[in-house]
């Protein structure tokens, strides 16, 4: 069984599983910090999905130097694009997380609570 499963599929499945776990966290945890953690999990999951998508069977890091000469590059490296995208995505995720955290901090300061279901004053 094991050899049949491509490595990137495993990564992909892990990534998707992480996303699900993150969603579960965001939907069920009332504590805002945990919700933020849920979001981070989703983010990470997506990053894993991205990287696994970029994988080419048998590929190596896309650095063209002595070990991977230019002529063989096309055949031997993994796709550099998803890696580049992941880099950006990570930073964005970090930005969002930090802002979310500062919201949580501020909400706690204003309301003395971190429970999201206690913040329903504007709704109708």
């Amino acid at each position, binding site marked *: 069984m094991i050899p049949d499963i491509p490595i990137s599929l495993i990564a992909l499945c892990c990534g998707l599983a992480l*996303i699900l776990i993150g*969603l579960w966290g*965001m*939907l*069920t945890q*009332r504590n*805002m910090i945990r*919700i933020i953690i849920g*979001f981070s999990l*989703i*983010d990470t999951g*997506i990053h894993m*999905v*991205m990287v696994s*998508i970029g994988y080419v069977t048998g590929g190596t890091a896309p650095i063209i130097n002595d070990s991977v000469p230019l002529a063989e590059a096309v055949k031997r490296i993994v796709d550099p*694009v*998803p890696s580049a*995208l992941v880099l*950006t*995505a990570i930073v*964005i995720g970090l*930005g*969002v997380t930090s*802002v*979310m955290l*500062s*919201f*949580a901090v*501020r*909400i706690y300061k*204003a*309301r003395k609570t971190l429970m*999201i*279901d206690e*913040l*329903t*004053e*504007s*709704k*109708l």
Partner: protein
Amino acid sequence: MMNSLLDMLLHPLGIYVIALGAGFLIPLFDRAHRGSAVLLFIAALAALATIAGVNLLAIIKGAPPIFIETAGISPPFSINMRFGLFEGGVVFALNSVAFLAALHLLGSLRKHASALLLYLIMVMGINGMIMTRDLFNLFIFIEITSLATYALIGMERTGSVLAAGFKYIIATSIASAFFLLGTVFIYYQTGTLNIDDIIVHSDLIQGPIGLIASLFLLTSLLIELKPYPANGWGLDVYETAPSGIASLISVGVSSGVLFALYKLLPLMGDFLPSIALISGVTFLASNIIGLKQGNARRLLGYSSIGQMGLLTMALVMLQQLDAMDMAIIVVGGLFINHLLAKAGLFWLAGIVNREQINDWSALSQHPWLLFLFGSMIAALIGLPPFPGFWGKWELIMQLATADYYGWILLVLAGSLLEAAYLFRWFTRAWQGDITTGTAGLPALRIRFWQPATVGIAVFLLYVMGSGMATLMDVTVPAFLLPLAAGLAMLLVDGLPGRLKNIVMLLIVGFFGIGLTHNLTGINLLFSYLLVGGGLLISIGALYRKDNRRGFYPLLAVLLVSLAALLRARTSLEFFFSWELMTLSSYLLIAVGRNGLKPALSYLLFSLGAAYFIFAGFAVAFAATGSLLLADLGDAGEQAGLVFGLLAAGFVIKLGGFGLHIWLPGSYAEADDDFTAILSSVVSKAGIFGLVTIAAYLGVQADIGLDPAYVLGWIGILTATFGALMAVFQEDIKRLVAYSSMGQLGYIVTGVALMSHLGWISALYTTVNHFLFKGILFLAVAGIILRTNERLMYKMGGLIKNMPVTFTFTMIAIIAMSGVPPLSGYGGKWMLFNALMDKGWYWIAALAFFSSAVAFLYMFRLLQTVFLGQRKLEHAKLREAPAILLAPQVILIAAIMVISAYPKLLLDPLSATIDPWIASTLVWEGTSLVSHYGNWNAPMIMAIVGGVWMIPLIILLLVSLTLKIQKVEQFNIVFAAERPRRPEETHFAYNFFAHYDRAIGFLVRPRATAFWNATVEWTHTFGSSLRIFYTGNGQTYALFIIMYFIGMFLVNGGLEL
């Protein structure tokens, strides 16, 4: 490549360079000096708008779209951007609004350097979303915008805004996650990230992965557009965020997302129906819920979401119909409209700073703000001359050509609902001192510069709206003349009231005659009634000595738009003038004593009517491919539907049976002189419309008799119930108002007959109605002026004080009643003959009945007001002012002439109709002969004069021998007792109590109850639609997930 630095700076790339450069430098400047940072910020924003503007101008002048490539590598291997007409337009508009919003917000923004840079970069982010052609780059710009938005929302750091902001973050971050996932899988399938490249290779997007990836992208963008019901998080932010930020979220961020969706639409071909449905439902649902909303900002939120739904729907529809060339008008118009109006409203909300719409009554003290407020609301509803009007027009036309009638219904119903709550809000604001809530609040303190940004937005709305007219097939100057007249009057609004009236008469006369002098046929006839009549009745308004600020400009708009209406060649021109007329008459009613509430129902019914007309025109356009009114007749199979819709519209406007509930209130509460104009002049516009469509459709297209027969019934039921309801009124204006409704009913029936005689009777009655209703309402104005009462039982015996008014009223009433020899008889006679000709016997019988019923209220009017016992406090009243009587004299003279020589009127009327229906009038001398009988008006006049004179002379002669004793008021045979007070003796209150006992059940206010129930039901429905708004961020997140899953299941997920 680019030689001078200036060229480079003005290149669209400069938007990024300047925004980022300035953004990065702001903290540095701030360290040095806060003021310099602010200056840099303002300068950068101005530069953003300037760059967009310069480039847009070049493109409009014909330059090709600008493609911005980066990295010196050509796409798809590097990121590129596009600055074409659409991008340029949106970017320019956005940057300009962003600039204004910044000015509006400057007070709070300048407190923090980071707020400045966040704002700047948010604007840049939106620019990027619009211009970039790379999918992943789009994601980054979405994120930039979102992040900046988050921070700015939280800027004030109060509990509620933070809570709302957190929900917003949760929702949008899930949406972003979806977007990212979608992007990745799209890349996986196509191997490219360039949107154009993806579109070229869209065949590669296939199978379950393709489907899921596309749905991820689509759902993400839709969620960002806040579709119902997954939009509670957005509303919370609208409600709590600083107004400037909320305005930018509403108009800026959403527009960016919408543009992104527009770019990706070629990939979404399979999902267009679901997108349309979602946005349509959102539009409708937000507007229904809006009805229940009491919080001003949240209300704006619903309106925003609704408008975005409409925009999205319009966009998708155009894509689906392959009519993207219309996007510039439809989406462009709606977009600009929403952008400016909604932003302006949010700013205004910031200035007013009152949470509950009830508390906006503070605005009543600020007429100019009220003006701005009203203008923006009118724009949002899509009233002319604002851009939204043109956009909605074109949208409906396009929908009609595709036979999307359900969508037309949805758009119009949604618009009507939106009008309902927005104008209700406006009414509250105008109303002022309502008791609830305001007591504890201090008056508004508004600095003079604060409304400047709002003012600019409104100004731009007017400019853009008027400018858009040039894109359409409209004779612009003619149709903007009403506004010009209004503007001119506005400039002299400081003058004394009477002087203004004279100026207005001159202006309206000049414009009106200019507009109508070369008309022919039916239009010419109505030009006499509408323009000439309008001027004549307006003379009566001179009796008011007060200043009446705002009254004359509106009246000028109304009267000139009536003239423009007659001139309309196309349905668009017609509808434009029609809406302008609706709007101005609404405002004129609203300035009446207690006019606001009835004005609201007037407006809503009028808009409802207008939308029927709108739909009718749309169907006609779809059928004929032409906007010309003259081509209406070519509608072929659709003619019946067109006729039905248009007739429904006009009948509502005339206060048709069951749809009349707006009428008594508006007539009663409008200023007394304006009521005269409303009844005798403005109502004729509806008749004009009815006659016009009857001519084009009824006769030319030969719709068959069924719709006409229905119309005939509606007309006669209107007449009957109008009369019956008039009988039971205590309020003199309501009585005359219902009577007006009844009389218009005869006209409707006459038109519906589709025969020469029927039309002659309709037109003849129209003229006659103008004459006697003009007299009646002016007389009523005089009575109310003198007595300061409207309840008839509080009057009585006024014949002694106001004999002239009494005489005029009596003559008008005889003319109305149809008693020979005065002019009313002719109308009745012709109508009856035409009905018999057609075989509409039941209608004829009802016509008999209703004209008999009419005697009841006519007599009541004369008896309880002029006859009977005079109230003690009325002993010293004077006759109505001469200036009020003067127009009545002219009208009386006209009645007399027409009564004696109806041929003078009938010949031109017949000539008007002859082109449509061959004349059937047979004259034998002065006698008009019909199939059944004849009518010899001069002879009748002579005989009646004779038989009246002879007893009179005899009585006079006898009187010479009599000792006639003039007696005091109470000298009557009253059980030998002399009543002490007139109240005991004046039989007036509940005059027809016995009649009420007998058939009063017929006129219990069922229509009112029905409409109230409808309103109630809509409200209940609206609140039940709010069930999804729990306020819990997690629930909202769940909705988003469900939304995606729903999209997935609906769009083929079940088959996987």
